[in-house]
């Protein structure tokens, strides 16, 4: 049951009536009885909410930053019209609009309502319930009831680095020999024999085959195919830190200033950007798309202290779909990542030699205690590439040296950068490839590193 503003107005008019009445006690009692009777009549005559039937259809998958729609069909099998408002209750970060929908379903008919979702966060969002308030003919009172109409929408990572894919595919095609200047080198394997045409490199003529065929035959080469790439996403505490500027605003990205007492300077704080995790996912998606086109097999593992996601053996066409689906619900866990466990997991899952791309933060203290002791186990069997998203805010701090305060901050930023350079140098001494780039550049930088490895035949 619910009352309307009209009922409150009627009750307020009662004050004046009682004030002016010759017999106030009876006037009050009478007014009370009239109001109660009208409300009861309204409740009895309102359309039944309990018997309503709902059906849903619409989007199950929405990319972050895009808008999805969910349709809700309301069927009224009861004898009376259901008129009033309906609320489809979604979590706030699903961005459901409008909050309340007008409803007018005559007896025995059905109406379709549309809720648009503009999600502000990755992950699964489910509708909590559908609540209907059915107002009676007098408009004084309403029946209210809730229905559970389950529907969930998976919000996928936006894969903004798609825009870099065409240029990297062009580079890949150059490698693959659709380019005329094809020479044998490391990282290529024998493809086929074909007749010599003018312009071919004479060094690639296969004299033995030419002798058999009475024609000049050249060997063609192509880059190695069917290599394995294992993308490992570190979802531990270091991946929660926000860097850069968010291309798609995420929930919680309010540019609000911190408490006065915590801010010794009155400079405006930068708006927190995307978590490192989201940038890493973006880079992983570009790498996966590229590697799949290059004919390599891509597996994906997300790990902190347990396996958060594992995608293996997806076909070339289904790989990206499988990856975005696996990535969608992953959130950064506020726990220290368990590097020995991660390495043990990688070793048990990757039997053959493969390229292990580890997307983590190049944080000296975290890597010193976690990854460095167990890195030799990994790098002895696999080719390891560590990719870390650097923080542009630190570079910005290191560059500002106008006042003494800023110089102290610059020194702190410089310290962080020195530590980062040292850990990078140590990783390289272990034979590990390192990609360290700003948030916007990490995806193309990682793709370029992959292409360089492929061109060098190190996969």
């Amino acid at each position: 049951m619910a009352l309307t503003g009209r009922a409150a107005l009627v009750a307020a008019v009662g004050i004046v009536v009682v004030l002016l009445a010759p017999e106030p006690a009876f006037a009050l009692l009478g007014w009370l009885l009239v109001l109660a009777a009208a409300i009861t009549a309204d409740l009895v005559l309102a359309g039944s909410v309990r018997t309503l039937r709902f059906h849903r259809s619409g989007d199950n998958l929405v990319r972050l930053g895009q808008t999805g729609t969910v349709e809700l069909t309301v069927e009224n099998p009861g004898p009376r019209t259901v008129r009033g408002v309906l609320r489809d209750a979604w979590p706030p970060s699903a961005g459901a609009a409008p909050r309340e929908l007008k409803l007018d379903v005559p007896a025995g008919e059905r109406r379709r309502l549309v809720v648009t979702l503009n999600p502000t966060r990755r992950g699964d969002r489910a509708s909590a319930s559908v609540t209907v308030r059915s107002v009676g003919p007098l408009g004084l009172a309403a029946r209210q009831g809730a229905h559970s109409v389950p529907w969930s929408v998976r919000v996928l990572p936006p894969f903004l680095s798609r825009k870099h894919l065409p240029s990297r595919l062009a580079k890949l095609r150059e490698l693959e020999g659709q380019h005329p200047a094809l020479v044998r080198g490391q990282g290529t394997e024998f493809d086929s024999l074909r007749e010599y045409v003018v312009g071919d490199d004479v060094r690639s003529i296969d004299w033995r085959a030419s002798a058999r065929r009475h024609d000049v035959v050249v060997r063609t080469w192509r880059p190695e195919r069917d290599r394995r790439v294992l993308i490992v996403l570190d979802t531990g505490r270091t991946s929660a830190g926000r860097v850069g500027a968010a291309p798609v605003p995420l929930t919680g990205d309010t540019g609000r200033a911190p408490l006065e007492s915590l801010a010794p300077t009155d400079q405006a704080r930068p708006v927190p950007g995307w978590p490192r995790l989201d940038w890493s996912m973006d880079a992983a998606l570009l790498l996966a798309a590229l590697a799949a086109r290059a004919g390599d097999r891509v597996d994906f593992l997300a790990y902190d202290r347990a396996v958060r996601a594992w995608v293996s053996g997806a076909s070339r066409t289904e790989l990206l779909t499988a990856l975005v689906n696996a990535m969608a619900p992953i959130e950064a866990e506020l726990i220290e990542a368990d590097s020995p466990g991660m390495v043990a997991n990688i070793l048990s899952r990757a039997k053959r030699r493969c390229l292990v791309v580890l997307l983590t933060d190049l944080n000296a203290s975290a890597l010193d205690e976690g990854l460095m002791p167990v890195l030799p186990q990994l790098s002895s069997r696999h080719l390891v590439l560590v990719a870390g998203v650097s923080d542009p805010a630190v570079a910005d701090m290191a560059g500002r040296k106008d006042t003494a305060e800023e110089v102290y901050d610059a020194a702190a930023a410089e310290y962080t950068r020195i530590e980062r350079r040292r850990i990078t140098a140590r990783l390289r001494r272990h034979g590990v490839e390192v990609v360290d780039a700003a948030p916007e550049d990490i995806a193309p930088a990682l793709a370029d590193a992959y292409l360089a490895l492929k061109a060098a035949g190190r996969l």
Partner: protein
Amino acid sequence: MSVSTSPTTGSLWRAGRFWIVLGALVAVTAIIGVALAPGAREARRLDPADTSLEGSKALAELLRKRGVTVDRVDSIEAALAKGEGRLLLVTHTAYFDWQQLDQLAQLQGDRVIVGGLDGLGVLAPTITPESESARVRSREPECDLPAARAAGSAYLGGELFRGANGCYPGEKGSALVQAPGEGGTVTVLGDGTFMTNQYLAEDGNAALALNLLGTKPAVTWLVRPDQPPTGSLAGPGGKSLGELMPATVPWAVLAACLAVLVTAYWRGRRLGPVVAEKLPVVVRAAETVEGRGRLYRARRARERAAAVLRAGTIDRLTPRVGLAPGAGQHEVVAAVAVRTGQDAHQVGGALYGPPPADDAGLVALARYLEFIERIVREH
């Protein structure tokens, strides 16, 4: 497909019947308790008819047992009507105005006045009050007054007075003063707590009270008059506030309460549940770096800051001037000086010199390092 999740009347009753029954039991018990309990009355301090802790019925009974007639009166007229030759006990002088107290002062006989400075000049002109008061506690008589000496220590204090016979002294003046008046002795007490039912049995309280009040065969006990509630007090026109108000107003107030209830229910009823969700943490990755900067700042760690800035510059300069990492100090200084055209001594001082003495020196060092780096980068 949808499922209704609203509770039905039956399920509401099944879920809530225990609490409904419990609530009803509590309500019934409370109603019975209130109906059987004696009507709660306001405690009337030092009233001979009051049996509460604040009252003085015990003292009145003791006096009656000793053959003293105790007459409780609550107005000046009644006190005057009792006649002269009796002991007059006034417990609350503040409730009477000057004219009434003047009439009372005409009454011949002994007087005992408890607490209160109002009307003291009329009722006991020979006794003057002191400006200070004392804490009410057990005190020794320390005087020659037979009534006090016989009683011993008593629970006295409050207002202090100066007069002929002072007993139970505080720092300045006494809590009990007896002086001869026009028609009999006048006794003034700083506080009447020792005569209440609560304290009468302690110390020599009962003895002191009986000695003071039992001197005459009859006591006129003047208590404070009953105060009618403020709303029914008559105004200058002879009508109280309640009589001036139209009869419909209280009912309209009731109707307004009803309207407020309806409005509250209208605004308070939520359309559907509050949906909660687990939000990710929002923490900027640069916060640790900023924290370190604040630590440097707070401790004025110039030495440390300068060392870090120099290490960063040397790290970046070494490969640019064509040296291997880990090159010696002299090689680096010489190579950088040649490349930049700066004085080798100055470059050496900037890259390897002593830490700056003050913040201005630190800023200058940071700028000079940046300057060297820029030249090396651009040439």
